[in-house]
């Protein structure tokens, strides 16, 4: 067998190994219900429940932030995040959490949030409005 064919086979083997390792490392998007049934970490997409309490008191604990999130299926759960409260969290429209259930709480290891003001235009209008009233 030619050396290049052997090398070709090695490359294919590595490529397959890469795909398998990515696949086995990848997680899934799920709901709180899914999270209760598995032990592993997963991603949950949802939005902040703005009516319930957001708890962060740096003077008590600078690394404890909790809030309530509703997932896309409508289930709600208390979230605990061991870190500071992300800036502008109240304004977030959508949140993607990574983490797992611990008892009745979902412990997030990362939070990715989206703020509407950055992405759509309607929200920006209100700030524009303020400037207008001031000048009348």
């Amino acid at each position, binding site marked *: 067998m*030619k*050396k*290049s064919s052997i*090398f070709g086979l090695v*490359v294919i083997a*590595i*490529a397959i190994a*890469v*795909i398998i*390792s*990515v*696949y086995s*490392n*990848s*997680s*899934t*998007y799920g709901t709180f219900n899914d999270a209760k049934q598995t032990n592993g*970490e*997963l*991603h949950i*997409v949802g939005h902040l429940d703005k009516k319930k309490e957001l708890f962060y*008191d*740096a*003077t008590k*604990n*600078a*690394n*404890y932030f*909790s809030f309530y999130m509703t997932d896309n299926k409508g289930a709600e759960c208390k979230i*605990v995040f*061991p*870190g*500071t*409260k992300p*800036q*502008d969290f109240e*304004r977030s429209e959508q949140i*993607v959490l*990574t983490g797992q259930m*611990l*008892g009745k*709480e979902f*412990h997030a*290891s990362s939070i*990715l949030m*989206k*703020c509407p*003001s*950055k*992405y759509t*235009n*309607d929200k*920006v*209008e209100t*700030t*524009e*409005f303020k*400037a*207008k009233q001031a*000048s009348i």
Partner: protein
Amino acid sequence: MNIAFNGEHLLPGHLGQFFIVLAFGSALLSCISYYFATTSTDKFDKSWHNLGRIGFYANTVSVVGIGVCLFYIIFNHLFEYYYAWEHSSRALPVYYIVSCFWEGQEGSFWLWAFWQAVLGNILVWRAKSWEKPVMTVLMLAQTLLASMLLGVEIFGYRIGTSPFILLREALNLKESTPIFNSNPEYYKNYLKYVTDGNGLNPLLQNYWMVIHPPTLFLGFASMVVPFSYAIAGLWQKRYKEWIQPAISYSLFAVMVLGTGIIMGSFWAYESLTFGGFWAWDPVENASLIPWLVLVGALHVMIVYKNTGHSYITATILVLTSFILVLYASFLTRSGILGDSSVHAFTDAGMFWHLVADVVLFLILSISLLAIRWKELPTTTKDEETYSREFWMFVGAIFLALSCFHLVIVTSIPVWNAMFGTKIAPPTDPIRHYNIIQASFAVVITFLTGFTQFMKYKKTDVTRFFITTLIYLVFAALITALVIYVTGVYKLHLVFILIMVGAIYSILANAKIFAEALKGKVKLAGSAVAHIGFGLIMVGALISAGTSKVISQNTTGEQYNADFVAAKNDPRENILMYKNTPVKMGKYTVTYIGDSVSAPNHYFKVDYKVIDTVTGKTTEEFVLRPNSQANRKMGLVSSPDTKHYLFSDLYTHVNMTNVLTADDDAQAAGHDEADDATKYDPPVVYTLAIGDTIPFREGYALLKSVSKVDHIQNIPLASDDVAIGANLQVVSHGKTYDAQPIYIIKNGGVYDFPHKIDELGLKFRFSKVIPAKNKFEITFFQQPESQRKYIVMRAIQFPYINFLWSGTIIMVIGILLSIFRRNKELKTV
């Protein structure tokens, strides 16, 4: 009905839009003309060629014109244009106005088109016989770029987005704002009410943001040149000739894009708060993907030039590298990464346009390759196992594999969109990327090492093994020392292997460099570049692998049950009250104050190293991490870093009660009213001279009581009595004076309290008890939570300077190679 709006400046926009259409039209004309000039069989007919050049020059002029119009609009704060309103504001200094240019998609497309035009000019000047076919391809790319800016609606589908769209059109001002809808007079004069723009994202207000995007886009843009040469080579059947000139351009692209990527990571390190220089964010990966492939392509191109092997691999990799640039721009601009990246642009309605761009060039490449496949020069002979070309080829393939992995993971949202699956990225992506990419890096660092001891075609095997082994032993010894000193030995085995590989590569290339100094000057470039690459690996590995969070919250007392239950507990953030020192590692850290330089609010954080034996301060410096209360984005923080030669100390503020996003207009001022709620319930002390009041963070000493002659603007009559209690307040080694005053005036009793805001204290001189010669002081203290604090994180990055200096060395090395290749180049 047309409304005549007052105060709008429509000319620059119309002119700009005209230039956009002209840029598109002229690029298309130039592309077509160059195509016919290439295929024309009549050697003396220069008309197509001339037309192609005219189109190209017109394109260059109009691209510059677009830039000038856009700059005029932003510079003059013409907020009737959406782009200016969205990305700039009046308060911005001039040099950041440049950054506004590329905050939006349109501006960055423009930047790309601008660089392509510049490169086109170089090609028209230098490419000679290659000009016609190469420019055909380049102008095709330019046509597509210009189409991204068109913003013209055709059959109800808007093509591209123009930077010259008006605010009232972009936002549909009339319908979205009730008051404009109800009152046409207001609507006509809407500009009066739009007084300022949204401003530039504070994170982009950094000098690196002025130069990083242009560098990066020059890198992206220059990748079109090797691609164009490859296509031209296949098209014109000049299979062997295209590689030589393409090598120089590839070197240039590798150098510039590499610099751009590292600049980006330096910016992230200096001004973002994720605490590092690389986070494997999809946007970062998107710029790395084409770079890796082009580096691979470059190596096999050199193999082909020297030995005639690997032609097909070289061609495929060059073609792939440019398609990956387009794919990367699809990933970052189409909004598809929405769920997995914080940095990506959102969809500006160009999803299918971007897809079409990728597909067009992909089909062009594949079909040309397929048509010419049988004619491509191949070698029937296998490479020798002990030959440089074989192992360079292996290295190139491994670079491509590493890129393959990045593409697979970064594109997970694309697979989901294509196959309707719901796969999420790995839960710990950084670890995942680190381990797999590190495995590739091990192979690549070793290859850049031992391949240096090989020769093209045939190598003396025994000599090769002896030299390789000697250097390997040396590398292992040095590595053992390095990992022991830096603590890298605690990491995963694969990282230690990279360390061996990188050090081995540095040593082997240092040998080549030494030989180059003795006379084989030709080899200097690659040796220097490889040394630089090795240093980058060493620096990245040590600083990322052994970075230490020193702001660890070790007190433990603040943890509730909830928190202890959390198993992945970073405890990286620490709360610091103003003027209360906290011990972190060897530093005694104190938040000592603030300074404001609008729009930034700087927190002064004092670091002291105190000798435990003598108690003397051996080192002291102040870091000033800042935050900006931004109307649009809330509180945005930037770190400050103390740079030592061998390590960096990085500090950033996560949270504070000193300023909030709402009060960026008015900071302090109104308090008296809510004074009562700001303090804990008062404590009354009855003191004699010399007595003290102890409090949480110090004590107050009643030194004396004296008569006061005048109190601010209150006139004192002769029978009025005013006495002051002279208090000396000591807290954390600092002394303050307080003098609350007690008055008897017109038979009534009053008192004037004295506040020490810095400590959150208030004293009232509330009573005099002459019989006992004692005085009553009412003491107010703000509760802990009312006191000013910051929550900060401090990280130590050891040896990060290897990373930055490695980059500079690599750039120098590539520059040397460019000079060398250009000397060899004899273009016809």
